[in-house]
């Protein structure tokens, strides 16, 4: 090690010594611990409040789901009932239509018979008149 290197080594060692002295721990400012504890307490209180709100919100949400489920059930049952009612009404309408058709057919048939009978009576009457005139 030459003189220059020795000097450099000594300078570095002095610098390290100086640094160790200057970088010694300094005490935290007065009341530091109290301020930390206060912030911890504030944050804990906020966290607890948030948890309470979360529990309440969760219960609220659960109640909401129950309400939705109940409403769905009611709508489903109601829908089914409406559907059944409509089907029943449609069936009744079809039956009524059939009865009406039958009644119309019967009336038509009766009218045909009356018509035939009147035609026959009219023909007999004409024949009788013709015979009387021929005499």
């Amino acid at each position, binding site marked *: 090690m030459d003189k220059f290197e020795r000097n450099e080594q000594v*300078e*570095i060692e002095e*610098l*390290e010594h*100086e*640094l*160790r*002295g*200057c*970088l*010694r*721990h*300094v*005490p*935290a*400012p007065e009341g*530091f*611990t109290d*301020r*930390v*504890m206060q*912030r*911890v307490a504030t*944050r804990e209180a906020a966290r607890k409040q948030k948890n309470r709100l979360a529990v309440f919100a969760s219960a609220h949400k659960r109640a909401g789901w129950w309400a939705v489920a109940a409403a769905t059930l009611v709508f489903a049952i109601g829908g089914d009932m409406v559907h059944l009612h409509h089907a029943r009404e449609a069936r009744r309408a079809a039956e009524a239509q059939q009865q009406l058709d039958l009644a119309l057919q019967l009336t038509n048939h009766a009218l045909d018979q009356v018509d035939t009978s009147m035609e026959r009576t009219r023909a007999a009457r004409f024949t009788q008149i013709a015979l009387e005139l021929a005499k």
Partner: protein
Amino acid sequence: MTATEDEFRDIVDSHSSMVFSVALRLVGDRGLAEEVAQDVFLELHHWLPRLESADHVRHWLRRVATHRSTDALRRRKVRPEGQSDEWEDKHDRPGDSGGSDCGSMGVAMERMLLSLPEAQRTVLVLRYGEDLTPEEIARTTGDPVATVKSHLQRGLQLLRRKGSVVLKEYVRG
């Protein structure tokens, strides 16, 4: 590791000086350093159940204090070297040299330290302020050991060069 309120208070009491010192040496501002140190302990309160021993707590505090100080500097875009005038005003008063027992040369040393690049300053603070080995510093900062050694060497050389200039000015003045 769990702690009651009193036990946590004891932990804060016993480590506040270390955490505050690391933050102060890295950010160069007492107000910001206290803010960083408080945040570190608040974070500790949250993480404490996952830490296993007193040594683990000390290592965790040193690591988080280092990272949070760096974050604070970047967030506020505070370059300590840019505050040298303010720093001088605040620290040149007798008995207020950042709280350490440095003389006027020591004050100059602190100022030179704050003018170093962030990575070199961090390594020097951990090496000479916290008395950590390069391997321990690497574990703290998350850098490879070779990088830590390089920062250490360059930081010392830079300080030495700055020191010789300051010493000449000191002798001339």
